[in-house]
């Protein structure tokens, strides 16, 4: 398991399967059995989702575990008739905009908190971090009044792209990630850049960012998953389908679909696929990013 070792020199680890539960050394077969059973339970909902999405309406009402012949037309029906095409497009635009915003604002802030000295810096950073403690259940009510233009007279943002993206383009957690990473960049590089006449912005864009691939990837992946899955907020600020994202569209479709489970499952697969594809291709960075950032956060 080399990829989960800590960055500062991993401690020596023997081949002995040491910290396991008592008795597992007895047989690897038992371990495999237990793991396979757990994995099967964990995978069952995905299998149900895929198989039912390919069934006919009649088949979903029986105990059949798999469709007699796969009904790919279900996907076409969900895509066009149930507006999943529009929801999908919306989700892509919303997620993309959010990621772009996060990468711009949080790299700048993370860099300043790590490498620029200015009065009030630590206080400001602590205050921003404190927002991580605040539950979304407290902020959504005033947040809704804000984007409706009740508090600041900037007009109503309901059913617009900014309402769905602006509140999410900066989060304290991502700033924290960037700050930790940027703080480790050697001071000599900055000295050299200064001699060449570079300012902070040029140093950040030409030296720091190109060597920050790992943290940029982690931030992108985390933001992608959060933005794609966000539910309560888009539910509040989209009263019509114009900018409605997949998660809200799918939740509404549960009522509209009624007994048409096959279409609902097709919609669910459409919602899940982009995240899964991304996850399969970036599995290592993904899991490590969450595991290491989790331990630090």
């Amino acid at each position, binding site marked *: 398991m080399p990829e989960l070792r800590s960055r500062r020199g991993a401690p020596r680890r023997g081949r002995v*399967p040491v910290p396991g539960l008592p008795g597992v050394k007895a047989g690897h077969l038992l371990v495999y059995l237990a793991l396979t059973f757990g994995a099967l339970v964990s995978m069952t909902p995905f299998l149900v989702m895929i198989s039912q999405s390919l069934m006919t309406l009649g088949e979903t009402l029986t105990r059949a575990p798999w469709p007699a012949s796969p009904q790919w037309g279900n996907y076409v029906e969900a895509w066009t008739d149930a507006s999943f095409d529009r929801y999908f497009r919306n989700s892509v635009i919303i997620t993309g905009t959010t990621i772009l915003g996060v990468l711009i604002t949080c790299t700048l802030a993370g860099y300043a908190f790590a490498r620029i000295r200015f009065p009030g810096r630590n206080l400001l*950073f602590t205050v921003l971090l404190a927002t991580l403690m605040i539950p979304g259940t407290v902020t959504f009510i005033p947040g809704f009044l804000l984007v409706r233009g009740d508090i600041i007279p900037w007009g109503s943002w309901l059913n617009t792209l900014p309402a769905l993206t602006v509140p999410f383009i900066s989060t304290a957690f991502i700033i924290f990630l960037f700050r930790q990473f940027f703080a480790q960049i050697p001071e000599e590089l900055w000295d050299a850049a200064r001699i060449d006449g570079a300012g902070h912005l040029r140093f950040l864009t030409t030296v720091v960012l190109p060597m920050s691939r790992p943290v940029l990837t982690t931030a992108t992946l985390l933001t992608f998953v959060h933005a794609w899955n966000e539910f309560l907020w888009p539910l509040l600020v989209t009263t019509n389908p114009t900018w409605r994202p997949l998660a809200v569209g799918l939740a509404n479709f549960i009522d509209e679909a009624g007994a048409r489970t096959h279409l609902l499952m097709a919609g669910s697969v459409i919602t899940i696929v982009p995240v899964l594809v991304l996850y399969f291709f970036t599995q290592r960075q993904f899991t490590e990013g969450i595991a290491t950032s989790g331990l630090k956060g």
Partner: protein
Amino acid sequence: MTWVGTLDGPMAVLDATPRAAPGRAHRTPWGEWLTGYAFVLPATLVIGVFGLFPIVYALYMSVHRWRIRKGAFLGLEQYERVVGDLGAFGVFLGGIALIGVAHWLWTDAFRGRPSGPMLARASGALVLLFAGIAFALGWQAMRETGDARFLLGLTRTFYYGFLSVPVQITLALVIASLLFQRLPGQQFYRMLFFLPYVTPTVAGAAVFRAMFSPREERLANTVLGWLGIDPQRWLFESRPVGQLLFGDLFARFGVELTGFWAGPSLALLTIILFGIWTYTGYNAVIFLAGLGNIPSDLYEAAEIDGANGVQRFSQITVPLLAPVTFYLTVLGFIGTFQAFTHLYVMREAGARGAADTASLVIFDTFYLRSEFGVAAAQSVVLFLIILAMTLLQSRLFGRRALRA
């Protein structure tokens, strides 16, 4: 990372800037300051407007009549509507705080005194008893005078948190220990276990609705059929689990099993299963990273000293993982106490609100009843309870976690 002498302890971590070279810092670096402020401005503005300002404004809303538009100033009236007698709510929160005091008396207060252990246990147990009484009495008084919908929601939130977090963490520790054997295919299993966590919640919940449908042919009831158990109504079932399991047994003695001890409704239990499915893999991955940080020399030394598997697990693995466990427990409780999406998606009118936790009640108060002020007061109350629980947990596990 340079540690600056004037800042010590945790504050030192805050100072990540390399120390300025000597002789450079003579004049005030206005340009440097300005660049710093310009860099943090966009993020600060966004987080300030959408993260910090709403907290203050929620407090402001909670003391005004506010149905769609702002009305008269009401003071704490809406809080009284929500939690009943404010004194009772204070006693209730005090009960949570007293658990921490009892723990302090038990572990730290009398350390190093000759009669320490006796005194510590006696006083600790006494305070714990008071904590229990305060908790129960406070709750009782709140139930009599407060908003029944919200307080019932809180009970369900407690069920949800206390039934799902320990199960998630235990299962995750088992899975992580098994995965840590470094067998071939470990990566593959890790990926499978982690998958539910990245799955969009609405889609996962939609499948759970299909699996746990009251129809006999659906998966959950099919499995029950194999075990010879009658089909259940799952998400539609408002009766508590205790009643479904032991109702007949108690009825034989002429007792009807109701109230808190009857447990959560079957509808809520189904939602708890969903929570366990989602978060176990995530917890396992974090545990796995924690296991990787335990030096293997410790195990080798223990093995030489003749410690068996159970001893190694309980004496090395569990204590050294304490910080991770602490982190996951806090995160788990904060997560379950404000969980919304899957509860919203999986609620069925047929269950008559039997699975509506506090966060759903807040949403309804806001969205369906348009009582913005009351909803704000409810959200502040939920926040206070989350805060009290977090502080208590850092008292109970945090010290041990920091020491490890």
